[in-house]
């Protein structure tokens, strides 16, 4: 075709980015890779081929890590950790800065290698993945620098095992390694088997930066290697990937004491109101669901359009889809590249083909042979259709309509996931009203898929827990300083004597603001130090747990009260407790046989005052993200928190868990101290007189071992804490798998309830939701 013909046709023509440099780098490495352990590459072992999904050609041969390799990597990380932490934040900042600079210097090599390996368009790897990876290292170089000043009370976790997915290979590596290293941890990272090459190039960069041996270790292989890392003696597992694997990791690490953060799947809502800039909202969908072929955990994959504009909007969207260019990912003029692997292509195809509902539209654009899937829109689906519920992880957008803002919220939240959401409206009242009501870790207003190192990324519900990025992300790689002491089981006192008080007083449970008898009708006696019966308490059964959670669910309005109001109520509780302090102190002394009662009551009142003070002061943040606009890191209540309260301090343990939780707007289901339950049952009278709305605080008595599994497995409970002296940590974490609720367990270690860290409790009582609000007229 001549220039003249092209002058007439005005087609784009090919615009390929050269792969020469990246292929030359692979040749230099012998096209075979070992693992990167203790600062050097191992001799390549048995392994597997890494393919270019767009062409099917083999790029390199990678080694499948053996148990010995993983052990060596963990040993190297362990050996390096102490020294790495000891060089201090500013010392580590220099290395992180060097890594950022080196990533920048080799940016095109990284981008081309990423596209070859993953199949994403070169535009994305060049303009998004690699620059964002650099940004994470720059940002966390700063965090390392500031750590001594800004975070004096925390220290590194130790050795972190990190398992990352194939959709953003280098970027996910950066999200994992940068904060871990900044806080003084060392890492053993496993890239996805489909896409390990940029991680191996990163290993090369680590050598160039002079990073001390063993600080970063990279082992390659399939899921079996991931399992070895999870089982290895690391201090933390950080995982990004599918919800099903995340659940298996939760089960595998339950009770191990390993910290865990999970960034899992999503089915994120993309809501378009009738006053939206429709053309911009359509363009937003290109970045939401056709970015990286929809292989994005936070992809706006569930389109909710206001009924009044639905047909018009779909029409514009279909026209836009037809303009998408699909093909060679190395072409600089391509919008949609290859799907990562034929296995993934088969999954997408299978899911879409199995759907018979709604109307399916495929972009009228040429589709190359090979591992490609056309941009697809399925309209007219309902909430009960599988494709509206399940993550497709491909370039497939599903849609339904709504009538009102409230219905939009209801539809958006009608999902097991809770990663991200997008809202399009020109009405600031509407947009800022909807954003806090969406159950998601990230909300974008009039934009989508905005990400930055300064703003936390992560979800709620079955999208996982923990944040990556921002100040909030550092919690995933730090722990409070200090050594924990072991906590021995405290058993209830036994006795033979009769009741201490001749008039029988019946302690009940407290559910929905009312006293409740145990559903099963069993009680047990509580004996004092002299062996006399101090009273009876009900034995909570599964049904009592169910009733308590139901009552908490009914008190959802508590989350929408003001911090000022919650503060007033907490002060009022303190006031009423104070009025009865002598009685509570005596009760505690009677039960425990010690003389700490007075001190414990005073500390409980202090605790109530502390969290009353915090109720309207634990502010969110405005993150400095690089847009004209703001990312509002809002602190929202977690929801319903189940807490197995400390045995050793029957009042302070109860108040210590309750006060921060309700101060932040959560509702709680509390299991009272097992051996000394009567302080809790006396306490509900204080609650009754303190204007605490029914259902906000619910108190159960009975065996922790029976209450905990039911509460931890309850799918309507959003977080579970255990401070029991019964070692329930493993049971709680295992049972939490159902809805992947956040857990905080003591791993059989004691907490000094007289010196707790309020920031730790407040952080556990909140989810950080980042609401991105670009602005400008």
């Amino acid at each position, binding site marked *: 075709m*001549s220039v003249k013909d092209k002058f007439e046709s005005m087609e784009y*023509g090919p615009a390929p980015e050269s792969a020469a440099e990246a292929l030359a780098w692979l040749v230099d490495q012998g096209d075979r890779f070992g693992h990167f352990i203790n600062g050097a590459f191992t001799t390549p072992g048995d392994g597997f081929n890494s393919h270019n999904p767009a062409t099917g050609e083999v790029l390199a041969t990678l080694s499948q890590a053996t148990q010995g390799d993983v052990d060596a990597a963990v040993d190297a990380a362990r050996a390096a950790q102490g020294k790495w932490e000891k060089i201090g934040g500013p010392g580590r900042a220099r290395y992180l800065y060097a890594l950022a600079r080196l990533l920048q210097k080799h940016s095109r090599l990284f981008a081309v290698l990423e596209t070859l390996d993953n199949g994403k368009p070169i535009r994305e790897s060049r303009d998004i993945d690699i620059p964002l990876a650099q940004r994470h290292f720059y940002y966390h170089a700063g965090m390392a620098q500031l750590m001594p000043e800004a975070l004096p009370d925390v220290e590194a976790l130790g050795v972190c095992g990190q398992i990352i997915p194939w959709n953003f290979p280098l970027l996910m590596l950066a999200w994992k390694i940068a904060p871990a290293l900044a806080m003084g941890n060392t890492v053993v990272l496993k890239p996805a088997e489909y896409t390990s090459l940029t991680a191996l190039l990163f290993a090369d960069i680590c050598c160039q930066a002079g990073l001390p041996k063993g600080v970063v270790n990279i082992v390659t292989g399939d899921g079996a290697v991931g399992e070895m890392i999870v089982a290895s003696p690391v201090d933390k597992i950080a995982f990004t990937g599918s919800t099903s694997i995340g659940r298996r990791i939760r089960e595998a690490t339950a009770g191990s004491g390993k910290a865990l953060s999970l960034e899992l799947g999503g089915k994120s809502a993309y809501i378009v109101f009738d006053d939206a800039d429709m053309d911009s909202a359509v363009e*937003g969908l290109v970045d939401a669901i056709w970015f990286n072929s929809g292989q994005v955990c936070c992809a706006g994959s569930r389109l909710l359009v206001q009924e009044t504009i639905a047909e018009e909007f779909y029409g514009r969207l279909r026209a836009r889809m037809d303009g998408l260019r699909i093909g060679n990912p190395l072409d600089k003029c391509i919008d949609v590249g290859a799907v990562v692997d034929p296995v993934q292509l088969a999954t997408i195809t299978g899911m879409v083909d199995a759907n018979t509902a709604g109307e399916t539209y495929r972009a009228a654009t040429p589709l190359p042979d090979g591992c490609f899937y056309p941009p697809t829109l399925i309209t007219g689906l309902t909430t009960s259709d599988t494709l509206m519920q399940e993550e497709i992880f491909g370039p497939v957008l599903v849609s339904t309509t709504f009538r009102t803002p409230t219905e939009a919220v209801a539809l958006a939240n009608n999902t097991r996931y809770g990663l991200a959401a997008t809202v399009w409206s020109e009405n600031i009242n509407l947009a800022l009203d909807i954003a806090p009501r969406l159950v998601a870790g990230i909300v974008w207003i*009039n934009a989508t898929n905005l990400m930055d190192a300064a703003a936390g990324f992560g979800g709620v519900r079955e999208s996982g827990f923990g944040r990556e990025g921002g100040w909030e992300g550092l919690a995933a790689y730090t722990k409070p300083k200090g050594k924990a002491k072991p906590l021995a089981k405290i058993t209830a006192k036994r006795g033979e004597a009769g009741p201490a008080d001749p008039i029988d007083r019946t302690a009940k449970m407290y559910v929905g603001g009312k006293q409740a008898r145990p559903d099963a009708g069993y009680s047990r006696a509580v004996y004092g130090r002299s062996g006399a019966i101090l009273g009876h308490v009900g034995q909570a059964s599964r049904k009592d747990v169910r009733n308590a959670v139901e009552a908490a669910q009914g008190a959802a309005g508590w989350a929408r009260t003001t911090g000022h109001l919650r503060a007033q109520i907490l002060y009022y509780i303190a006031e009423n407790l104070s009025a009865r302090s002598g009685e509570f102190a005596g009760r505690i002394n009677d039960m425990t046989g010690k003389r700490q009662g007075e001190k414990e009551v005073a500390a409980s009142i202090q605790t109530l005052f502390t969290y009353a003070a915090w109720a309207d002061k634990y502010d969110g943040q405005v993150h400095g993200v690089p847009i004209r606009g703001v990312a509002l890191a809002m602190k929202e209540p977690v929801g319903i928190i189940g807490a197995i309260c400390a045995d050793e301090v029957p009042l302070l343990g109860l108040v210590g868990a309750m006060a921060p939780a309700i101060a932040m707007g959560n509702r709680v289901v509390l299991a009272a101290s097992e051996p000394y339950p009567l302080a809790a049952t006396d306490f509900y009278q204080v609650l009754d007189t303190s204007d605490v709305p029914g259902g906000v605080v619910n108190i159960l008595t009975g065996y922790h071992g029976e209450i905990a599994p039911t509460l931890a497995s309850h799918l309507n409970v959003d977080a579970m804490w255990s401070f029991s002296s019964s070692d329930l940590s493993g049971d709680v974490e295992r049972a939490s798998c159902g809805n992947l609720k956040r857990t905080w367990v003591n791993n059989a270690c004691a907490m000094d309830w007289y010196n707790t860290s309020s920031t730790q409790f407040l952080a556990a009582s909140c989810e950080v939701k980042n609401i991105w609000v670009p602005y400008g007229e």
Partner: protein
Amino acid sequence: MTTKTITPTAHLPQVTEPRNPGIPLDMQWVRSVQANTSAIERRAKTLPGRRSVKKDWQAAWLLRAITCIDLTTLAGDDTAERVRRLCAKGRQPVRQALLDKMGMGPITTGAICVYHDMIGPAVDALAGSGIPVAAVSTGFPAGLSPFHLRVAEIGESVKAGAAEIDIVISRRHVLSGNWQALYEEIQTFRAACGDAHMKAILATGELGTLRNVARASVVAMMGGADFIKTSTGKETVNATLPVSLVMIRAIREYHARTGYRIGYKPAGGISKAKDALVYLALMKDELGDRWLRPDLFRFGASSLLGDIERQLEHHVTGAYSAGYRHAIG
């Protein structure tokens, strides 16, 4: 709607397209217009990274860009001789040897754009070329001379031989929200144009917001504009990609609602070959291939051609070019 084959010398929209007669002022439409600045800026910012045209295709696109240029001189010291030289450049915008190397037939620029007094010399110089003369009018650039004189100016220019009239709107009608007045002004100008086709200059740099740009675009088309154009080139901010996106999306909606294709002319500040490629890609992606022809797309530019010529020579020889090797216009 039928479209005839376009020859390089048939630039006038009325030759190829049913001409937009305008429609009654639809205030519901005007008021419902939305333009989210941040989102529009993001689209505009990422577009150059999403579209790339290389090698022969790039040469072809640059040649296409030349055919869409309104080669312009709007200076107080314009003389007949200066305009004659510009017209000659319009007839032969690229050195013949370069065109031969690329196997291209003759091309011309889209139009020659001048002030009223230069219409005569331009018409004479372009005789037989088929290149239309465009005249800026209606008290260009501020549009603040007496209304009857502005209308009369159009008539004079048409009489003098201008086939295209670039009118300026009263910005104050936009800024005061007097859409009725704007609509009537444009209708009056359009009537005065007669068979000459009318480009409505919105002076977007003075309209304050993208939302105003969108509203003014819609009202201009309702009033019967054949083209909507960003700027006079005299405002402090002239054509930008975000403004262009807003205006061409308005064109797309007008076409969807009425079936009429309105042309688009970004003017001012487009001086690099690379910019021209981005604009063509924007037109292609947002409006479609039909808008890549001079009857529906023009660049208002004076220095753009020089940069394109250098790029074309680089394409042909492989060596970066120098300005003095190309005839100045």
